[in-house]
């Protein structure tokens, strides 16, 4: 069974982003870029399935600028067998990415598609669900455990107040939550090996997909600042302040 995993190149999670002075976007020039952490979990899960003998081939896919090739090399260093970049300088929004992935799903016919639940840049949390809709496949979002047997996936997912377990027929789309696994560290020998793995580059036109944005960003601002309050010397003062000044207890 082939497993297709989508990965996104985003501003590294340790970077404190700044809004550009012209308020058009956040400043991503000369900022460290990395694989979206949830996508790293998605790749790790696919690799574990292959190690357990449940998957035969892992294809990593990314949609975006040329530099996404670095992200795909990382995916292959973790254990993906080959990679596809759909290269575009356009602002690729989730619906467009889902359409590109749908075209690749049609072409590659994977038994399972795993994505991160959301990207930490636009925080949309849409692409997996949209891909499932377009490909008319069952979906399980926010997965914390995946088990495969008899052409079905049994998946636990995190919901408000606890967790639930769903069973879906394969092929299916699963999106990874934080606690699905802990991704391995990439080792130097694997980085070297990844450089030799095949990486195919396509354009959206090759897949016949229109990636015109549907949502226009008018401006990007800094969030309102919350200023620090006061330090209180002891518990008694804290209780008094909460009762008489803040009036919240």
């Amino acid at each position, binding site marked *: 069974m082939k497993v297709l995993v989508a990965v996104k190149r985003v*501003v590294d999670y340790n970077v*404190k*982003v700044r*809004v550009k002075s012209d308020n058009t976007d*956040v400043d991503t020039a000369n900022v460290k870029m990395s694989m979206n952490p949830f996508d790293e979990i998605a790749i790790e899960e696919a690799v574990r399935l292959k190690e357990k003998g449940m998957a035969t081939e892992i294809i990593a896919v990314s949609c975006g600028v040329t530099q996404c090739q670095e992200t795909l090399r990382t995916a292959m260093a973790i254990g993906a067998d080959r990679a596809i970049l759909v290269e575009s300088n356009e602002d690729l929004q*989730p*619906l467009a990415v889902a359409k590109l992935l749908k075209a690749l799903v049609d072409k590659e016919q994977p038994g399972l598609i795993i994505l991160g639940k959301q990207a*930490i*840049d*636009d*925080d*949309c*949390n*849409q*692409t*997996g*669900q*949209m*891909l499932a*809709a377009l490909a008319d*496949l*069952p*979906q399980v*979002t*926010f997965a914390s455990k995946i088990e495969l047997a008899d052409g079905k996936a049994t998946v636990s997912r995190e*919901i*408000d*107040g*606890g*967790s*639930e*377990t*769903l*069973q*879906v*027929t394969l092929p299916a789309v699963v999106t990874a939550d934080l*606690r699905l696994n802990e991704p391995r560290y990439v080792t130097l020998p694997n980085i070297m090996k990844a450089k030799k793995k095949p990486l195919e580059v396509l354009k959206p036109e090759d897949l016949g997909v229109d990636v015109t*944005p*549907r*949502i*226009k*960003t*008018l401006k*990007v*601002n800094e*969030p309102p600042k*919350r200023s*620090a*309050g*006061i*330090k*209180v010397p*002891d*518990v008694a003062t*804290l*209780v008094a*302040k*909460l009762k008489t000044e*803040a009036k*919240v207890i």
Partner: protein
Amino acid sequence: MTTLVIAEHDNATLKPATLNTVTAATQCGGDVHVLVAGHNAAAAAAAAAQISGVAKVLHIDAESLAHGLAENLTTQIVALASGYSHLLFAATAAGKNVAPRVAAKLDVGQISDISKVISADTFERPIYAGNAIATVQSLDSIKVITVRGTGFDAAALVNQGNAAIEKVADVAIPGTTTYLGSEIAKNDRPELTAAKIIVSGGRALGSQDKFNEVMTPLADKLGAAIGASRAAVDAGYAANDLQVGQTGKIVAPQLYMAVGISGAIQHLAGMKDSKVIVAINKDPEAPIFSVADYGLEADLFVAVPELVAAL
């Protein structure tokens, strides 16, 4: 122009996030309808009819809708969508699961997690874990949106049902997904995203036992919900669904008490809209103090029991 709010419910009761979503819907302009799709969910539909500002409740009852499966709900919503200018979902685990599937079926973009309605097609939403606020305009004819509950007040409930309830027949569904079961933590505490007071514990608690021993009496005394930082959850001190932060729950209670939480960006993104923030931490340099209204620099194992006694 009419907005359809997809109610979040457990068939018996409406989830509070639905009320905040209705408020966002009224700000989009035009009439507001609410869809209650479930199984034996007449009580939830009746509750929806009591929400102030709602003109009509659509009620679909079918066994396939008992567990809110995304595939099945999407089919019902898409069948109704042509009559609406806006489809609004709460930005909860359930809403985030279904809304993008609906948007893609309608071939429209989705605007996630709006925190403000500027006009019928323009909205504000946080990006980069709340470190920037984007103002975005939808270019599609139907706007599919998820609503961040903390950005909008809850709509009021009126005693008499003010909206008509209309029964709608369900559409046949493919059935590729089977619900096997769920584990919902049972407790009498208020739900994290709806609580007026939240007490949250961090890694400084040191163990699951200490977490419970210190945080539970404080929560009991204040009638508060219990939250936790990602560090505390990852260390196994608290359950996953208690996590407050960008990758967990976004909360904005009247009072947020952070106990032994240093205040990583990802945690602050989940609670910085709280009305009053209290931080108890022994590290004077902890970033949490930069957003706290009242900071107490103290050993939490001494300060919290003292606080419980003083309340």
